[in-house]
């Protein structure tokens, strides 16, 4: 790369901002710099994630033994709803796109910023307002919502809790998601550096691009659907209310038309991160670049056509169920394409098992278990038995927490030196991954068995025969808490006390590794010209001279 040169005296984006104020809070909250916005998302998301983890720990503690342990049933109903709403709408959906997409999408395509920097800041503010409304719905009289995160009708119309406000918060958060999505699509179309053709884009960019399309196509549908629930609650127009002729199943259709594609909003960017980390630590170009890029788009497309597999027991026709079951199996194909290509990339590679790579290994195991049990749920015969049991809870946590959550940490550990210009403690990081992996299986694997034995989800109490497995799961939650403290503590310590990092500690070759760590305000000292394939490690020699 001829012109990725680094000026030794350049200021980093921490020292030079876009606002008039040089330092202090206003230099951050009014900054239109995509890197600062990414970091602000990171801090906000960390707070919400920790809150939802604490809620989960309380629920697990309640379930340690049959009967009442520490809380009333209504409190438990509110807690599982809150855990879901916070984790889904405030952590996993914005998670990787808003934090790492914001920070690294422009860097990876060699742009100075996103297409609409002010709109980007607006998205962040809308996100914060949405989060504030969620918190407000807890505090106001009426009480925290208790419907589960799916807001199913008719209970969501009948419940006296603060449903309207919480739903409006979800609408506001969706608006933020749409604005981020259209910003990223425009950025990828308009701001790629000279020489960066579509098939020279890093795979994280491809994944984020596919995600952005899902964000703008699916989110408006849930937007209107949940607005209708609010209207239903205030005016009783009857659109979903069976008492007035409406159809609650129609609500479920519309809800899942968004919310199923939304799980791909959650997982696709994570898959993109995996496609970045594996080549870097295997020192080998990615196997099947085009197949991985196209499988992202395929998932985005087929992911639209599988929503009714959430409704196999809701009362839809057999023909519909068989078709949706078939489509569900088809959506597993592009995911399989990705996993096989990742594994093939490692074959004969020169593998350097640094912490980010270990996170990815943990992801492949957990996500494969999650994915394969998804097929069990996608088959009609088995789903009738397993629907609404702990099996679904276990599957969902394996794909979402084991998939996206794990990769959120992988991305944090991979890009940490670039974001903060420092390093974390590698040994502690390795211990963190290992403990996380053990805790994860201890916490969630018993739920597969419990679900298979017939333990329904969202229940406050259970039969005594489930006690030992519930106990193992609760112990797993404590180990998980320790693992998360190590993992997050190591990052926090690294931010303030970690040793200085070089600009390219892992030997990555995508564009973000061509600039200094942390990058300057406009990302590159010179707009780079792309001449290599994205994962062509022959550039490493040239890069040493930069």
């Amino acid at each position, binding site marked *: 790369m001829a012109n990725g040169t680094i000026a030794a005296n350049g200021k980093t984006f921490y020292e030079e901002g876009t606002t008039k104020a040089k330092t202090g809070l206003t230099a951050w909250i009014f900054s239109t710099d995509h890197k600062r916005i990414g970091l602000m998302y990171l801090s906000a998301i960390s707070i919400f994630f920790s809150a939802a983890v604490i809620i989960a720990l309380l629920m697990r503690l309640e379930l340690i033994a049959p009967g009442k342990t520490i809380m009333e049933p209504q409190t438990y109903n509110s807690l599982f709803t809150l855990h879901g709403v916070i984790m889904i709408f405030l952590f996993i959906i914005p998670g990787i796109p808003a934090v790492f997409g914001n920070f690294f999408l422009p860097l990876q395509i060699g742009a*100075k*910023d996103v*297409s*609409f*920097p002010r*709109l980007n800041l607006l998205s962040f503010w809308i996100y914060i307002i949405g989060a504030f409304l969620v918190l407000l719905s807890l505090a106001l009289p009426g009480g925290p919502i208790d419907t589960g995160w799916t807001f199913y009708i008719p209970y969501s119309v009948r419940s006296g809790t603060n449903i309207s406000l919480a739903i409006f918060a979800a609408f506001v958060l969706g608006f933020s998601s*749409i604005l981020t*999505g*259209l*910003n990223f*699509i*425009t950025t990828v*179309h*308009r*701001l790629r550096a000279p020489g960066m053709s579509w098939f020279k884009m890093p795979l994280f960019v491809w994944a984020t691009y596919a995600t952005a399309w899902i964000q*703008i*196509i699916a*989110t*408006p*549908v849930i*937007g*209107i*659907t949940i607005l*209708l629930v609010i*209207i239903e609650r205030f*005016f*009783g*127009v*009857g*659109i979903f209310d069976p008492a*007035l*002729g*409406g*159809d609650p199943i*129609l609500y479920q259709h*519309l809800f899942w038309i968004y919310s199923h594609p939304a799980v791909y909003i959650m997982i696709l960017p994570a898959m993109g991160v995996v496609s970045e980390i594996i080549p870097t630590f295997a020192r080998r170009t990615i196997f099947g670049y085009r197949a991985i890029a196209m499988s992202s788009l395929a998932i985005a497309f087929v992911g639209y056509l599988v929503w009714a597999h959430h409704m196999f027991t809701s009362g839809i026709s057999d023909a519909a169920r068989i078709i949706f079951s078939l489509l569900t199996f088809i959506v597993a194909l592009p995911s399989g394409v990705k996993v096989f290509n990742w594994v093939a990339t490692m074959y004969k590679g020169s593998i350097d098992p640094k912490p980010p790579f270990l996170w990815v290994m943990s992801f492949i195991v957990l996500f494969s278990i999650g994915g394969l049990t998804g097929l069990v749920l996608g088959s009609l015969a088995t789903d009738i038995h397993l629907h609404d049991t702990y099996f679904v809870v276990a599957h969902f946590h394996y794909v979402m927490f084991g998939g996206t959550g794990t990769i959120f940490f992988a991305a944090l550990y991979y890009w940490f030196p670039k974001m903060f210009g420092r390093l974390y403690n590698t040994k502690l990081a390795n211990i963190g991954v290992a403990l996380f992996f053990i805790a994860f299986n201890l916490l969630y694997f018993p739920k597969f068995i419990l679900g298979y034995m017939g333990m329904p989800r969202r229940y406050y109490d259970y039969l005594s025969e489930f006690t030992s497995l519930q106990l193992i799961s609760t112990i797993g939650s404590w180990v998980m808490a320790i693992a998360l403290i190590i993992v997050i503590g190591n990052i926090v310590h690294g931010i303030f006390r970690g040793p200085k990092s070089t600009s390219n500690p892992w030997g990555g070759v995508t564009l973000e590794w061509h600039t200094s760590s942390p990058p300057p305000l406009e990302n590159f000292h010179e707009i780079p010209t792309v001449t290599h394939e994205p994962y062509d490690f022959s550039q490493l020699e040239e890069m040493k001279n930069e």
Partner: protein
Amino acid sequence: MSNNVQTIETHGNVHRDDVGAKMGMWLFLFTEVLLFGGMFLIYAVYRFQYPDQFHIAGMELSTTIGTINTIILLTSSLTVALSITALQKGNKLLSVSMLSLTLFFALFFMVNKYFEWSAKFSHGLYPGSDEMLAKQNGEILFFGLYFVMTGLHGFHVLIGIVLLSVILAFIIKDKITPNNFVKLENSGLYWHLVDLIWIFLFPLFYLIQ
């Protein structure tokens, strides 16, 4: 001249990309279409489920007011397009007057809407009223959809009024010029969308009976 513009862009550190701005706007309009798409889907489902009751309920709407509002909105789409072309040709005065005319039509539309809705309310036709609850399910749904869909459309007209007023002020203050009019174009696109949605709402509620 073009060199000059180039320098200003670099020095001001403001990134200008008209094609990108329009692409972003088209994507946004796409999300709007999907937002209303969800409603049209619900309309289709219930029309199929209760064809006769939708027919009876549809007779209550005034085709005359609907037609007048359609003509008003279509004309306002024309004037906003004329305003853009006028500015492109450098005729600021014509552009400003065409945009003001658009705003006038938009307000006119809302006034009509106000009278139409008040007439319904005075007949006791609003969600949750005793009159309404005495009707058959299909009719309740028809009116529910009618108020929600035309209400949401009306809300978009209101946003359009605010948006076009801001743009009008920008043109008057020369912040939107014949060399830099992408904001006006984008607002025009939004206004056409509001018009387009009405073109679907009008036959579905006022004409098909």
